[in-house]
């Protein structure tokens, strides 16, 4: 039984890593077409770094990810605090609203944002589809995730700690900055990390909300796949895989140090 489980696990891990290994191998492959290995080369990496467009898409991706993560983390953390601490009219409704971006398929989310921007253009004259609309779309799904992550962290906190701060004469904002926020910090960091990952990975919402000049790396990969791939995309994918591995390993190492 144990042997069977081990074999099964081994096969599943093989299934998980085989596609990634194929892409990495092909990024060093001389042959332009097909999946047969003909010899080792670094030409595709050279071609990638000499392509000014790829750099532009890379910067677009980073700008979208960092700006949206910053805004969403701020809004989501505040919203989580408000939802946990206070009673107010419409609280239940707002909690339901939070789940919509989490459960609704991203196609639906993408087209509803597209429709919103189109109607806003008719009525207000803006926004044109651009990098800005992509950022607005990303913040929208990120806020929901950040709020839920931070809220679950806040619900775990001991209310006695805040009471103690108040008993010692702390004002509302002092309690918040000296007690609540430091205690909730792991939740905020986890929420921000999740938001960043979701933004870097997002294709669908970006696809529907991006205008000309707002191409991100996922959009570039998609159009290359649709139009016939140059092995440059393999090189780019390998770099992305390497970076993801690096950051995940970093988070993993930091997490182990804390425990």
């Amino acid at each position, binding site marked *: 039984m144990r042997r069977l489980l*081990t074999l*099964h696990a081994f096969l599943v891990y093989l299934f998980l890593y085989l596609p990634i290994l194929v892409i990495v191998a092909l990024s060093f492959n001389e042959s332009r077409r097909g999946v047969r290995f003909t010899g080792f080369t670094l030409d595709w990496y050279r071609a990638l770094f000499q392509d000014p467009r790829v750099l532009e898409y890379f910067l677009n991706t980073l700008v979208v990810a960092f700006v949206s993560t910053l805004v969403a983390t701020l809004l989501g953390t505040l919203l989580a605090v408000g939802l946990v601490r206070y009673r*107010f009219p419409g609280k239940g409704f707002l909690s339901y609203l939070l789940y*919509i971006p989490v459960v609704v398929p991203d196609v639906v989310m993408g087209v509803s944002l597209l*429709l919103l921007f189109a109607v806003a253009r008719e009525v207000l004259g803006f926004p044109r589809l651009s990098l800005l609309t992509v950022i607005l779309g990303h913040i929208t799904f990120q806020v929901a995730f950040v709020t*839920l992550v931070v809220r679950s962290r806040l619900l775990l906190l001991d209310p006695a700690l805040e009471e103690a701060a*108040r008993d010692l004469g702390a004002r*509302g904002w002092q309690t918040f900055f000296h007690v609540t926020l430091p205690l909730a910090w792991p939740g905020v960091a986890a929420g921000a990390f999740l938001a960043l990952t979701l933004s870097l990975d997002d294709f669908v919402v970006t696809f529907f909300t991006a205008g000309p000049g707002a191409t991100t790396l996922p959009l570039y990969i998609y159009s290359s796949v649709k139009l016939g791939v140059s092995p440059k995309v393999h090189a780019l994918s390998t770099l992305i895989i390497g970076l993801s591995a690096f950051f*995940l390993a970093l988070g993993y190492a930091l997490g182990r140090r804390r425990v």
Partner: protein
Amino acid sequence: MNEAATPWQRAFRVLVTVGPGGLWLVLFVLLPTLLVLLASFLSRGPYGELTGPWGFHNYAKLLRPVYLEAFAQSILVGVLATFFSALLGYPLAFYIARHPRRDLLLFLLLLPFLTNFLIRVYAWLLLLQREGPVNALLGALGLGPLALYPSFLAVLLATVYTFLPFFVLPVYASVERLDWQLLEAAYDLGARPVKAFLHAVLPQTYPGLFAGSVLVFIPAMGTFVVADLLGAGRVVLIGNLIQQQFGITRDWPFGAALSVFLMGFVLLSLYLYARLQGERGLKDLV
């Protein structure tokens, strides 16, 4: 924070904390949802603009066989992807949870998952090509080459590959909380291994199984990217139809009706899940 505060102070605090995020959700989640609902009752003008007449005609159009078939295919992909994720993921969750280096194994499970979604789908396109490695292997075994791409099978395979961690993680959380004493008790009472598992272990993992199924089923039936890249027009799911209406076809009202339909279906699935699991189950999903 609340006792000493006047009503005005309290209102101000709610406004500062809930205000910005709440306003954002109303503007960018509630409003677009209402607009989609509204648009689904309108008609398409000659230039793809939204005009009258109002009516249910877009919903009537949904019942045409070609669209019903896409809907059936979406459900089929969702159900099969969930089934195969369970087949691969359920034993794996046990293996990881019982392993001394489980954090490393979890790390290795999540690593492919953190590489861009499109790259993961595209990798299967490479693997399944006529001259690709999978066909080379099948050829060596005397079974191929087969036309694996584009096909329904390719779509299913890549869907399972893409969403597998969604299934493993909730099951893993269930296994971690398992009370193994029940299993020992079952053995002490003379149960055979299979029976002992079915009665003492499986029921304890139902929450994880249900959560994992929902987390795979919904994105699997709702995605358009996998079918777009690996089905190459042969596999059309609801998501692909929606994308077409807002893209090439420019029939936004019909696309909106499809979206409302898909949203309704997702909410119904979640409602059934909540009935199975109780309120807490929904909170566990996130």
